[in-house]
């Protein structure tokens, strides 16, 4: 299992700082990757929805898809945060016995994390039912940016220039993907089927 950084294992910091701190998988990479994307997401969302020439049906389809994208991003970040917090509370599990892993289910944070991740899986599948994979992938990468920016603005984590570059690149990718129609296989038979 992933080792919790010492400051998380030993210092029960007040909620929500401790909760967000639990997002860190190790000290070398706080997955401090994250709020710029929510900003970029909202801006690109507005641009995409209010494009001239879009009829009301297309706009409604887009709107529903955007709600699903937001749900996928938020449940991904929250689910992983809760599960990570729960697993750190349970402690290191190095075992081949499923019983040891079942112990994790007794932890409220782990249970919350698993339930939120179930919502994430279902909303991701619902999103894939109405949008292209090549649209969903870059757009849901906003989750990385969300984690980094929460780390920066709430935890006051230092973000190196390399990480800021990463955040900007991902945000650029999200905006570009948002500029494309969410589904291009409409009316065509999916080739795999």
């Amino acid at each position, binding site marked *: 299992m992933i080792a919790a950084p010492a400051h998380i294992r030993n210092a029960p910091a007040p909620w929500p700082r401790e909760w967000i701190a639990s997002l860190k998988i190790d000290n070398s990479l706080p997955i401090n990757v994250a709020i710029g994307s929510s900003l970029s997401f909202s801006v690109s969302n507005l641009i995409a929805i209010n494009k001239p020439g879009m009829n009301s049906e297309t706009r409604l389809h887009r709107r529903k898809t955007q709600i699903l994208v937001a749900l996928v991003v938020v449940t991904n970040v929250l689910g992983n945060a809760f599960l990570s917090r729960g697993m750190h509370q349970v402690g290191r599990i190095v075992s081949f016995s499923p019983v040891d892993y079942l112990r994790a289910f007794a932890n409220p944070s782990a249970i919350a994390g698993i339930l939120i991740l179930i919502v994430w899986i279902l909303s991701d599948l619902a999103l894939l039912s109405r949008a292209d994979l090549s649209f969903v992938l870059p757009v849901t*990468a906003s989750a990385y940016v969300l984690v980094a920016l929460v780390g920066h603005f709430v935890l006051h984590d230092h973000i190196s220039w390399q990480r800021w570059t990463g955040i900007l690149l991902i945000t650029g990718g999200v905006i570009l993907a948002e500029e494309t129609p969410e589904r291009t296989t409409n009316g065509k038979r999916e080739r795999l089927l």
Partner: protein
Amino acid sequence: MKWLLVGIIALCNTIGDVLNTAGMKRQGEVEDLRPGAVAGMVKKIIRNPLVLGGFAALAVSFFALLSLLSITTVSFAVPATAISYLLETLLAKYVLGEDVRWRRWAAATLVACGVFMLSF
């Protein structure tokens, strides 16, 4: 060994996502997220061989990631898997028949580079 695991992660992730997309498109667009409709969606999913295959591939990818994390650091594991963004876009175009033009290629490339940069 670690590069073998990286390959397994990228490949299984890609196969899983492609199968899930194909399976969900076959099932039809989800329009409603009320509990009854979601229950109906779940019932269809458990009888959808493509989505079940997708889950199996994603499960293999997940356990390979856990193994990779046990022998390397996250700073190695995360950037190494960034390549799957490009691989998935390639398969989305040639296997799923999606209309991938320069904007989507650029988006996938930017995200892959961005994820890579985040590991520093």
